[in-house]
């Protein structure tokens, strides 16, 4: 079965084509969903791609969180289907209340585009269950100005207790050194899951690390894991 990946396009999204390219590269069917679209029939995965929805004006993701498509995405997620928000998409998920916390300006106060290392913190999610081991270090690019994850202490404790941190910034050895945190995120958080574990938000761009001609290939692990999770279980 070829799963169908719905790539949401907000006004100002700019990694929509990249997500489309990479999922197709990995063998999925894809469909663009303009933000006014509310019909998600036939869609197996929702991707909220990176970019600058509404120019990132006011606050990243703030206006996009109110796009008509987001109500449908909420229902889609509530039905247990997988949603992945990448970069700007992560920001939208937080603003829309699908994930806790918020993304603030990088602590260095500059946009950063670079490959970073992230550590796989849990295998319990469709995004991390296939072909990864706990503590595995992946190299994935980031490209953001507002990627500093913030949540209050209580929320952080909850995330830890429920093992809902999917990825943390680390060094080549998997250590959480201060230099390895590119944006000042609390607990080095690079990606988190919702309580039901079917919604992932992450700042790094796995879709930029799929085609070896233009980047690494570690992003495939995440996207492939997601695609495998949709295959009917073999009996």
């Amino acid at each position: 079965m070829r799963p169908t990946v719905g790539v949401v396009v907000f006004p100002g999204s700019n990694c929509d084509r990249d997500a489309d390219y990479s999922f197709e590269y990995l063998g999925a069917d894809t469909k663009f969903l303009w933000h006014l679209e509310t019909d998600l029939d036939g869609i197996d995965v929702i991707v909220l791609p990176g970019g600058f929805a509404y120019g990132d004006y006011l606050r990243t993701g703030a206006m996009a969180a109110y796009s008509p498509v987001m109500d449908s995405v909420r229902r889609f997620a509530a039905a247990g289907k997988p949603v992945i928000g990448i970069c700007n998409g992560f920001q939208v998920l937080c603003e829309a209340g699908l994930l806790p916390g918020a993304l603030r300006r990088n602590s260095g106060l500059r946009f950063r585009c670079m490959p970073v290392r992230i550590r796989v913190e849990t295998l319990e999610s469709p995004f991390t269950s296939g072909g990864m081991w706990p503590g595995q270090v992946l190299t994935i690019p980031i490209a953001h100005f507002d990627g500093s994850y913030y949540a209050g202490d209580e929320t952080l404790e909850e995330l830890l207790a429920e093992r809902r941190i999917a990825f943390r910034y680390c060094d080549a050895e998997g250590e959480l050194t201060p230099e390895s945190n590119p944006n000042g995120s609390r607990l080095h958080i690079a990606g988190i899951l919702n309580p039901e574990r079917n919604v992932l938000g992450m700042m790094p761009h796995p879709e930029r690390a799929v085609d070896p001609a233009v980047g690494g290939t570690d992003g495939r692990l995440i996207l492939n894991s997601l695609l495998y999770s949709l295959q009917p279980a073999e009996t």
Partner: protein
Amino acid sequence: MKFAAHLNVMPRAEISDPQGQTVERTLPAIGFEGITGVRVGKRITFTVEAPDENAARTIAASASEKLLANPVIEDFELELNPL
């Protein structure tokens, strides 16, 4: 009726404000001593049209809460004056 709304949106007190800190560190370097506790937030001004002040306040406050400020990281103060 029209009302002028002034909204101050500041990072919440318990949250560190790297932008404010950077400004604070830069100031002495360019000759300004004695400035501390710098915090940088947003100021948003707009006009609300509503039947009366109460209605205007409801609109403005709820726009602030829902869109203009993010309660996870920001506090806001709203001021409303008839125009």
